[in-house]
């Protein structure tokens, strides 16, 4: 039953909407236009993102065990899952595993912190001083292309088999990432935000601390994350290659040692530990930081198509 309206002349002159009327209209529109953020329930998150990989790993391990049972391969070429578990627990009981983990983590974290301390001001400087950036930027990007493992031999010659070698390699690996992350972060600051800052009357220093730095945070955190990945990689490379001397006993050394004893179960066990630490640091340190930051900015895309 459409209501037909034949229009010949305009209807009565419009009345000015009074303030209260406007208020209620705006309230209605605001209500209609904002949908409350829905976070996936913990149970749903568990079943969609935690459970499947666990099941997959379980299936993999089962297949592996099945192969062992059926094909009975030489244990020094294909160890059984149980052998790997035993290798981990043996290393734990002897205290070597704990020592290796603490040594490596200590070095990795300390090296990473030094890299942050060096990389952050350097990155800020390059991001804000254009001529410097033109000159130094490409070199830093180039250094990121260089495998940090290549620095190990040089570092050994300079610093001998000592901790300095390890730290040097970590720094050469992590600093370019952090610097580039910060530069990218600053580049991605919408020019509009800077202009708003200026319009609001911010001076250079206020603009940097109140606008540019917080706006560049996502890029910076991404750079830090990558910097950590490179720290960890470089550390492992350094520890594997530079064994002996006064270099302590880290996970890389443990890997190389188990290799030298032709102990494949031990090698796989160490790889698993290295992987677990990598994932753990990612989950414990970076993921919450990143999620929180992105959620605050509404940049978090909840993926469950």
């Amino acid at each position, binding site marked *: 039953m*459409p*209501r*037909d*309206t*034949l*229009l*010949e*002349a*305009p*209807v009565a002159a*419009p009345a000015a909407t009074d303030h209260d009327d406007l208020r*209620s*209209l705006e*309230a*209605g*529109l605001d*209500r*209609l*236009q904002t*949908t409350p953020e829905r976070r996936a329930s913990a149970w749903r998150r568990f079943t969609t993102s935690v459970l499947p990989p666990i099941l997959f790993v379980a299936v993999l391990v089962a297949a592996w065990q099945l192969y062992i049972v059926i094909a009975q391969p030489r244990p020094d070429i294909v160890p059984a899952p149980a052998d790997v578990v035993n290798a981990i627990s043996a290393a734990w009981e002897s205290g070597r595993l704990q020592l290796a983990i603490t040594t490596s983590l200590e070095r990795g974290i300390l090296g990473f912190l030094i890299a942050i301390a060096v990389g952050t001001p350097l990155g800020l400087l390059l991001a804000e001083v254009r001529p410097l950036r033109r000159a130094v930027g490409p070199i830093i990007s180039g250094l990121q292309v260089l495998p940090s493992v290549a620095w190990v031999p040089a570092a050994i010659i300079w610093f001998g088999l000592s901790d300095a070698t390890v730290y040097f390699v970590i720094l050469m690996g992590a600093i370019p990432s952090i610097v580039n992350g910060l530069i990218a972060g600053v580049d991605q600051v919408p020019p509009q935000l800077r202009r708003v800052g200026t319009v609001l009357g911010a001076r250079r220093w206020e603009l940097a601390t109140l606008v540019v730095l917080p706006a560049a945070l996502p890029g910076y955190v991404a750079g830090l994350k990558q910097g950590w990945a490179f720290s960890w990689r470089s550390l492992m490379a350094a520890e594997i290659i530079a064994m002996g001397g006064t270099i302590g006993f880290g996970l890389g050394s443990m890997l190389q040692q188990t290799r030298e004893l032709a102990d494949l179960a031990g090698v796989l066990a160490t790889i698993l530990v290295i992987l677990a630490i990598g994932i753990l640091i990612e989950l414990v340190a970076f993921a919450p930081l990143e999620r929180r930051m992105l959620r605050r900015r509404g940049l978090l895309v909840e993926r469950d198509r």
Partner: protein
Amino acid sequence: MSGQTAIRIEHLGKRFGAGPLVLDDVNLSITAGEFVCLLGASGCGKSTLLNLIAGLDQPTTGSIDTPAEGSAVMFQESALMPWLTARANVELALRLRGVPRAARRGEALELLDVVNLADAAEKRPHELSGGMRQRVALARALAQDRPVLLMDEPFAALDAITRDLLHEELERVWRQTGRTIVFVTHNVREAARLGQRVVLLSSRPGRVAGEWRIAETAGRRIESPEVAALSIEITDQLRKEIRRNAA
């Protein structure tokens, strides 16, 4: 009210998963060749309804009858393939329609000329302005050669000057091709400017809350007094709907 029915919607209801009811008992029948504007506030379910008509989604209850040939759709963003030139974008539609390769190029250029873009055929979407992109999208929709054209706020992201122009363009194309057009918008004046019929949807859930028919559609401009008068009437009704949601 002559002509046969192109689209018939009966007791249509739609709910996403376990969410609230989005559309509730919508009844609508659109004559072939009619230009219908669907009007409603944000989130009232206009796009949902259009997607249902386009067959991109399935209704929860009720039924929708559409022509067997299907319908062409235009979205708010032009959604052109960014790696293809304007011409190649139109040709893609022709290719998927099954037009033989040899005929595509000529037909695409003709369609681009219909929207006054023959000169920009070899440009890529990022080299075109928003209005030009929507005209390419219109040419692409025409390339599909379907009796029904569904448009989801196609001009909402454009500036007013361009929008006014595209209103004229669309009206011309409509008169030329005789398509059935369902045009979604939340711009009351746009609806009153373009439609033969304006259907107002209420919010949460979306129901048909009012309908207006415009007898004389030739020579309208957005500033025309009859458009203004109808706009005032529809706006008042729309604001009533919005105010209902304030509490």
